[in-house]
């Protein structure tokens, strides 16, 4: 290529870049909230639930500081690199007051750039403990329970349920650091009853080699640290196909989203969850849950799943904090988040003193068929135990290893 053409082509590119300004800034008076989540691919029903929960919470909120709230949803593909770009877009271009949504891998990536973004990020779908422990950031809060909290809950369940306590345990997971943590926990809790573990490559579709492995180890309880979504559906289906569900109890280390439970149908009754972040049937104990469920059902025509309840709780905390701060000044909102307590669909929430993890309860129990379908759901988790944060979380952030600057 001749050099003069370089100049011309560069000019064209530059023009294109300059013309590109993105969507107009919108109404100046509205308060903008960014939502970063998955919108395509087999896992996107989780993203749909997150967005739906935030929408309902926003509708219930109405105007904030006298201004309408505008939600700006961005696709992150659950990809750390893209999430950083999209978060930057939300901050630099849309001037959002806070960012909601995000999974562990995205939240961790955002922690790394949080000091550059300077915006409150409240995640409701990230299990990775490091996020609010050694990697904690002034800007990043979490409302759902982290992995170590679920691990503490597991101990309790094993103590209370002798059938599980005496079972021979096997951990089967995808090769995420999270799965390793779950395996370590299960091994620690079950001791001599731990018969093995296996970590499948991330795109495993045929689980038969792993089912053979579980059998060969003689397991009677399987901790499934398998990605919530298609892979878990595939595994449970195949475990049933092989008759494994008759031999062993399936246990999920975190709750199953309700759309997943609906897909599993009767298969779901083979599963006990030891660490749900939320359960809509908590409405029997908590009026805030019931109130939210009804609005949610009216708006979306389906039951509010775990991710919806969690994201709604995070949203409510952000709105309360903005109200308390009296502005969307990021520093002020962060300070307000540190001190507020809010009645949310998962119970009254506040953040750990000196930390970034919400003092959120866990909901434990098996999945069962409902005698009377409710909110369109025919199968749902029974809340046998609501496990308070006081039993699972160190009292302060610094006890948990979070050192805030």
């Amino acid at each position, binding site marked *: 290529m001749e050099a003069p053409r370089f100049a011309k082509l560069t000019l064209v590119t530059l023009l294109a870049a300059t013309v590109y300004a993105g969507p107009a800034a919108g109404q100046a008076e509205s308060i903008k909230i960014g939502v970063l989540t998955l919108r*395509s*691919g*087999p*896992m*996107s*029903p989780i993203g749909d639930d997150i967005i739906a929960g935030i929408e309902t919470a926003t509708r219930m909120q109405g105007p904030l500081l006298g201004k309408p709230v505008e939600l700006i949803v961005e696709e992150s593909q659950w990809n750390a690199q893209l999430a950083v770009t999209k978060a930057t877009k939300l901050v630099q271009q849309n001037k959002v007051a806070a960012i909601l949504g995000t999974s562990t891998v995205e939240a961790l990536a955002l922690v790394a750039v949080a000091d550059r973004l300077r915006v409150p990020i409240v995640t409701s779908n990230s299990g990775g403990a490091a996020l609010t422990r050694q990697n904690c950031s002034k800007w990043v809060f979490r409302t759902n329970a982290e992995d170590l909290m679920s691990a503490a809950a597991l101990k309790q369940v094993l103590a209370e349920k002798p059938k599980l306590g005496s079972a021979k345990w096997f951990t089967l997971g995808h*090769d995420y650091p999270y799965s390793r943590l779950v395996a370590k926990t299960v091994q620690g809790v079950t001791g001599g009853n731990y018969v093995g573990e*296996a*970590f*499948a*490559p991330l*795109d*495993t*579709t*045929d689980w*038969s*080699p*792993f089912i*053979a*492995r579980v*059998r*060969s180890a003689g397991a009677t309880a399987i901790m499934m640290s398998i990605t919530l*979504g*298609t892979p878990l*559906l*595939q595994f449970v*289906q*195949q475990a049933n*196909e*092989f*008759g494994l569900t008759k031999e062993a109890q399936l246990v999920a280390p975190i709750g199953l989203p309700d*759309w997943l439970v609906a*897909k*599993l149908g009767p298969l779901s009754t083979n599963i006990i969850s030891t660490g749900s972040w939320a359960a809509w049937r908590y409405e029997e104990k908590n009026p805030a849950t019931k109130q939210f469920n009804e609005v949610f059902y009216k708006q979306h025509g389906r039951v509010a799943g775990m991710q919806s309840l969690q994201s709604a709780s995070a949203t409510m905390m952000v709105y309360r904090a903005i109200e308390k701060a009296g502005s969307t000044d990021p520093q002020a909102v962060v300070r307000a988040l540190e001190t507020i307590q809010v009645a949310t669909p998962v119970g009254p929430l506040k953040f750990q003193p000196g930390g970034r993890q919400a003092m959120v309860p866990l909901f434990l129990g098996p999945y069962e068929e409902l005698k009377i379908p409710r909110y369109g759901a025919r199968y749902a988790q029974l809340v046998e135990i609501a496990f308070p944060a006081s039993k699972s979380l160190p009292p302060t952030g610094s006890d948990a290893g979070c050192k805030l600057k």
Partner: protein
Amino acid sequence: MDINFLLANTLNGVVYGAFLLLTSLGLSLVFGLGRVVNFAHGALYALGGYALIVVMQQSAGYWLALVLGPLLVVPLAIAIERAAIHPLRSRPEIYTLLVTFGITFMIIGALEYIWGTGTTLVEVPSPFAGTVTILGNPYPVYRLVAAGLSLLVSATVFAFIQFSAIGLQIRAVTDDAGMAEAIGVNTKWLLTAVFGAAAGLAAFAGALGAPIFAIHPDMGSGILIDSFLAVILGGLGNLPGTAVGALFVALTKSIGGGYVAEWSLAILFVVVAIALIFRPTGLFGRGRVA
């Protein structure tokens, strides 16, 4: 871990291998015939799954849908061939890979748009819902049936290629396209037809595997990589080689998966890499792959 475990996973490997052969055959045929590296093969496999659902929603039974569904995919594949692959005939074969890469995105996007991103479980069809005891453990009957059907269909394809007049033409073109054209074989027509048939095979596999692997828009990406490795190992365009390649890939995944779980894929890739270094045209390939 005892010998029973090894045998159980060998069986798992053979069953998956039979299934993989179905998807690999079409890939291999299309490459041999028209030097088309069909990256969209996985997406066509996914289309088969959705075609199954569509037909079943018309209150057809599983078995009827298994036959009719894939037939819906064939005309679409033929349209794709005419519109996007045929115009690339005079260009290097790598362009077919690129264009089918784009088509994959289009198909997945369309599936998500039309049927949503969710996963659909398909019930194991009667009368094969139960298990039989093999090696002292229950084994799903349907997997055995699906493997048997896969082998049956594959064998039919082999026989067709080997003994029919069209099969002879296909072999002639695979051997030397220029020569075959010189003696009057219409390679253009042949490629279009074989592309359609290969898509039908992939779609059939998608429908057949649905009760095991479930249906979702991205379901083809895993099987695509496995099939590619099988075809590459066996030698592009070499059908018996493809059969061996499929079995090899499946056994590595299942036996490797059983013993060294998280490393199993890496081992598979290393083995394929070593095989390619010493035999760039595949273990059973002939001549040069340019």
